């Protein structure tokens, strides 16, 4: 079943990131996603956040389909199916949210009074959701140093006492998550990752999103650090659209 939902509000978050708000009576838990069909273009996975009583997707423009989504306005319609995937196992307590690139979009539902954010991006332009955190609770990191710390997300972690957090949530490019994973593994911390592998079916049939035999669309996208520890493919290899094995660098 494909849902057709009217865009009731559009917010420009950065020059390339837009939030599209809509009414939808489905129950969506933090970490779950939908497959958004843009007729005539393609279908892409997007995390859904519940914001201000409405649902919302936050789209970072990368290619043709996300560009079309970014150009959509109030009154236009979203076509989507879902929600899919395993939500984060907990969303309460003292939280550290580490988001790189559009990854922060997947964590947005979790932002509350108790959350600290590490928001990583290339430049200051692309810093996402800083204002959604309590003042002083968002740490920005940019590759060019144009905002906050200069560096990458892992660099920001070094300065924090991680044991103060009930849960640490991480979402971003796989190589960034891998770097963070390598820092945090074996530390008895409660860490949940949200994976972003390319998806075709979204429902556990096509194998295009799989990591170590787990379907990110079904067994994930959220995985606990304990599950990630045994993954031979994580941060190392993935399949291209054809199924050809590609080695990440």
């Amino acid at each position, binding site marked *: 079943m494909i849902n057709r939902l009217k865009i009731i509000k559009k917010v420009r978050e950065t020059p390339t990131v837009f939030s599209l708000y809509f009414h939808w009576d489905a129950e969506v838990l933090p970490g779950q996603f939908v*497959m958004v069909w843009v007729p005539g273009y393609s279908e892409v996975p997007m995390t859904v956040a519940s914001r201000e009583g409405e649902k919302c997707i936050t789209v970072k423009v990368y290619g043709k389909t996300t560009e079309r989504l970014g150009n959509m306005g109030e009154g236009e319609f979203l076509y989507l199916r879902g929600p899919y995937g395993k939500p984060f196992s907990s969303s309460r307590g003292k939280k550290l949210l580490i988001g790189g690139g559009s990854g922060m979009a997947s964590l947005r539902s979790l932002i509350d009074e108790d959350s600290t954010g590490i928001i990583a991006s290339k430049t200051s332009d692309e810093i996402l959701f800083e204002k959604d955190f309590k003042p002083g609770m968002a740490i920005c990191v940019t590759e060019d140093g144009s905002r906050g710390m200069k560096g990458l997300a892992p660099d920001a972690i070094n300065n924090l006492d991680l044991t103060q957090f009930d849960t640490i949530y991480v979402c971003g490019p796989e190589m960034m998550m891998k770097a963070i994973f390598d820092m945090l593994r074996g530390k008895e911390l409660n860490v949940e990752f949200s994976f972003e592998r390319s998806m075709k079916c979204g429902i556990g049939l096509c*194998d295009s999103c799989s*990591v170590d035999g787990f379907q990110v669309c079904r067994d994930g996208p959220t995985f606990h650090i304990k599950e990630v520890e045994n993954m031979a*493919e994580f941060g190392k290899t993935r399949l291209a659209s*054809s199924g050809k094995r590609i080695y990440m660098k």
Partner: protein
Amino acid sequence: MIDLRTKAGGIELDTPLILASGILDENGYTMRRILEAGAAAVVTKSIGVDERNGYTSPVVFEGENYIINAMGLPNPGIEEYGGEIKIAEEAGKPVIGSIFAADAPTFLKLAGEMVDYGVSAIELNLSCPHVKGFGTEVGSDPTLVKDIVETLKASIDIPIWSKLSPNVTDIVEIGSAASESDALVLINTVRAMAIDINARMPVLTNVYGGLSGNAIKPVGLRLVYEIKKELDCNIIGVGGIGNASDAIEYIMAGASAVQIGTALWRKGRGIFDEINQGISGFMKDSGIGSIGEMIGVAVQ
């Protein structure tokens, strides 16, 4: 202990449940995990000579009790695929190599490479309903089917399975043409489509796709029964199997083993154990000692 072993298409299986081609079998790690979860064997994604990305999304449409897919035969090409098979084979169970091509020489080349990769049998995809020049377009021509099957049987030493399409007027004609195969695999998906009335257009980018899941079970069962009755050959049943009863129905209609695909959508990997247990329970309650005692018993 109930004995679930069966011999199907020339290979020995611990249980009658095989993973169907095209579902969770592009990545070697996934196949390995499915074998560990209780599948007796896996059939790989259908592999051709050249790398193909498949169609642009949407490639699946989700109905209430069915899926329509038009993946478009994405595959890395036979040269690249060996590594995945190696990983899958670590589970120590049979891996069956599915291949697609347009003519006998190409099928033969692909089969040869699959043999080198160590697969236990070859499954010929003569039935994909949504890619021009392959699948059903090949598999609905009895002369071509006969040529392909006989060419492969003459040179390949491992069992050859022919996977046939329900989208034909006369399955017995096609089945006869393929009757030298070690097994006929019935059925591939039923040609179908979905339209979204709000978007006023077909949902799948390719327009046409293949219907699978619960909705096609009565059709698959009929084709298995018809082939068993008319040709009495070795059959592997597939199409809409989602629980133990479905599997047993196929076996009673004449299948020596069955394949499971779309049911993984609703039930996940656990389905293999669930169905194995269901079959054992039924056999125990009914005083049936082996899978063999059930094969084809419903055929009149």
